[in-house]
């Protein structure tokens, strides 16, 4: 009986060789048959490739409403209550006949011989003809390679030409296609050895090991990405709407985490109205994820190229979220500032976060039109923000000041305008002089520390722990958080040093990743292993978690010591602004009053009843800084650093870098 529920998929009870099975609508019959424990021969089927039914060996008898017919199981989607028989006399007769024809044409190919055996075909002579190819590694036209090229690499380098007996495998016009990057997917899926990989560039020690794991990555891109994060379709922008839904999308200089206008800048609009390019060529030729996107024919409205149609690389998530942070809920604006930042060589994140800070300062009256060259820089002032960007590039006007970044603006406004330093420090979203990237970290202690402790400043590529911490609650204790703040920066530094991309580590996950306990699952163990195997395949040196962490820890500690040497590597440099860890203003507190009041009662143990907002804000502030300092202490301890955040000599000894050149960094130069 079919079970249909309000939003869930329909399921059908079907019968396979008399055995009952429950199948979700749309499941291909071959999968259902295999899942039920029956074996059906096939030549052209491959678990990671789109089925195409060309070999016809997987024929099964299907009975629908009393009518029986033969179907190819690999590409027959179950759409009703059916009765299936995988081996009727008629089915067996057809399969045997087909297998004899294959055997007649390719008598010495092992894959064909195996199939023939399964189907009871033994007569090699029956269909012998002028087409018979005695080569044991002959191409059997299964099409695995053609489909791998298309689904793994989003390319159509390989294809079939000719019809009937003239059908053959070829590249366009029978020539070697220069677009082929040599990904070797075709050779990997070829069941006969007709396609051989003969050249391994860069002299890896074990190319087969690299290929085996690389192909796992490719297959996941082809089969799982569309069900998971749609990186191929929309790239990193797919999380604009996700961040808004979880109150994490920065809005108005990180005051809020969502906005009613987010649907104007989400990935649906980008896909529908903007993205025109999405191929495996944008950042790494041959990448099977191809997450980089581009907008073609975008007509600029401002600046030196006004009126010209240009190609824009992006926007990615951070750039779109920079838009919401400035209150610019308009993709025309976002694509334009994206283009000009790229053109001028300015980082979109630093620009957006600085501009959002300037806008808040303008709204708070710290600066006025007198300082901004007449520009009204309220949140959402998109034309004015673009003008600041152009001024910055021209080296003129207020834009030059904006170009100095948040830290210097704070210092300047305190010194020259007498602005309140506490307020500016609370809302100025920078640590170590670098502007925050675009996530609201208020509700995740581990993310706050991941940002503020990052050696280069609050950038998310050391530890991005918002979901693990805030949503999943997987690292509840301070020690758990410290452990995550130990492992993730080291892992990310390690693969970064190897030149491997972060995206194929965790923007797609194996279908069965949930078999691991949650804290392990967050690491995506199979993908970490892929990276170890890439390393081993290239260098011949096996690596495991212990060795990886040691390699990374040496570099990480050296980086920290260099920061220390140059005056940016102690506890005071790891402290975030208030807004990164909690509400900084009355407006912010009131916007999430229920949440903060609840926390005050349940976590701090103070009854908010009868207290003014200002009092509640002060209590929340104290509590959150205390919590932050506890996590900082726990992290320093786990890393083997002293309470001031400086690597100890003992730790340097443990990891084997207590050499004089490194120890000399502990002696600060005269400032």
């Amino acid at each position, binding site marked *: 009986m079919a*079970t249909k*529920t*309000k*939003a*869930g*998929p329909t*399921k059908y009870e079907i019968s396979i060789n008399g055995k009952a099975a429950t199948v*979700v609508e749309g499941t291909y019959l071959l999968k259902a048959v295999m899942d039920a424990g029956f074996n059906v021969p096939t030549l052209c089927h491959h678990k990671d490739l789109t089925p195409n039914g060309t070999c016809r060996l997987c024929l099964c008898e299907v009975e629908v409403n009393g009518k029986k017919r033969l179907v190819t199981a690999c590409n027959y989607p179950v759409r009703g209550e059916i009765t299936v028989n995988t081996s009727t006399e008629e089915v067996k007769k057809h399969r045997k006949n087909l297998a004899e024809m294959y055997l007649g044409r390719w008598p010495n190919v092992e894959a064909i011989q195996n199939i023939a055996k399964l189907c009871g075909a033994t007569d090699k002579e029956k269909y012998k003809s002028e087409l018979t190819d005695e080569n044991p590694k002959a191409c059997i036209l299964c099409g695995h390679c053609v489909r791998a090229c298309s689904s793994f690499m989003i390319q159509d380098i390989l294809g079939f030409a000719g019809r009937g007996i003239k059908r053959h495998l070829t590249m366009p016009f029978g020539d070697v296609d220069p677009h082929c990057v040599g990904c070797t997917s075709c050779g990997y899926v070829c069941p006969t050895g007709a396609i051989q990989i003969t050249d391994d560039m860069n002299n890896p020690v074990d190319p087969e090991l690299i290929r085996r794991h690389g192909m796992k990555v490719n297959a996941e891109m082809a089969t799982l990405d569309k*069900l*998971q*994060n749609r990186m191929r379709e929309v790239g*990193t922008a797919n*999380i604009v*709407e*996700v*961040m808004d*839904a*979880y109150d994490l999308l920065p809005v108005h200089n990180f005051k809020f985490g969502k906005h009613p206008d987010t649907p104007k800048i989400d990935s649906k609009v980008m896909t529908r109205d903007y993205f025109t390019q999405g191929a495996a060529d944008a950042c790494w030729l041959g990448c099977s994820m191809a997450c980089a996107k581009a907008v073609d024919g975008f007509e600029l409205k401002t600046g030196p190229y006004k009126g010209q149609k240009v190609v824009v690389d992006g926007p990615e*998530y951070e750039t779109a979220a920079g838009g919401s942070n400035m209150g610019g809920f308009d993709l025309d604006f976002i694509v334009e500032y994206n283009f000009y930042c790229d053109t001028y060589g300015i980082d979109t994140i630093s620009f957006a976060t600085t501009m959002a800070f300037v806008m808040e300062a303008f709204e708070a009256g710290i600066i006025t039109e007198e300082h901004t060259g007449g520009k009204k820089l309220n949140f959402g002032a998109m034309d004015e923000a673009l003008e600041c960007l152009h001024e910055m590039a021209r080296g003129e006007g207020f834009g030059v000041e904006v170009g100095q970044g948040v830290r210097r603006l704070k210092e300047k406004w305190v010194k020259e305008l007498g602005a309140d330093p506490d307020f500016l420090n609370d809302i100025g979203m920078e640590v170590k002089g670098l502007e925050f*990237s675009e*996530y609201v970290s208020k509700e995740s202690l581990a993310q706050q520390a991941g940002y503020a402790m990052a050696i280069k400043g609050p950038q*998310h*590529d050391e530890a*991005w722990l*918002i*979901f*693990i911490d805030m*949503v*999943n*609650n*997987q690292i*509840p204790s301070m020690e758990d958080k410290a452990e995550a703040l130990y492992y993730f920066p080291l892992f990310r530094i390690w693969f970064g040093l190897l030149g491997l991309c*972060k995206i194929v580590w*965790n*923007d*797609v*996950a194996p279908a069965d*990743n*949930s078999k691991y306990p*949650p804290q392990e*699952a*967050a690491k*995506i163990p199979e993908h970490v292993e892929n990276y170890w195997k890439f390393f081993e395949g290239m260098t011949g040196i096996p690596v495991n978690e212990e060795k990886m962490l040691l390699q990374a820890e040496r570099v990480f500690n050296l980086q920290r010591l260099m920061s220390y040497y140059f005056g940016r590597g102690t506890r005071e440099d790891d402290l975030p602004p208030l807004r990164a860890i909690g509400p900084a203003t009355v407006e912010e507190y009131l916007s999430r009053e229920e949440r903060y009041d609840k926390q005050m009662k349940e976590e701090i143990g103070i009854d908010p009843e009868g207290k003014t907002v200002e009092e509640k804000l002060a209590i929340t502030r104290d509590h959150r800084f205390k919590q932050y300092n506890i996590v900082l202490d726990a992290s320093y301890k786990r890393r083997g650093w002293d309470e001031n955040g400086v690597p100890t000599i003992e730790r340097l000894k443990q990891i084997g870098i207590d050499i004089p050149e490194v120890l000399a960094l502990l002696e600060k130069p005269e400032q």
Partner: protein
Amino acid sequence: MIVVNNKEKLEWYEGMTVQDVLDKMGYVYPRITVSVNDRLVQKEDYTTYEVPDNASVNVFHLAHGG
């Protein structure tokens, strides 16, 4: 009463499904793993799998940002 991710408490009612819990929590992320009292629930069963009272529901987001 049920507990989500060992933290959030939700009022339980007769017939409450996994999908109801996800809706209530605002969990719209596409890559999640759900377990009810440590038993894994498949995606196709979210709308039919009923959550018992006092259940511990874990919704694990395999988040990929940053």
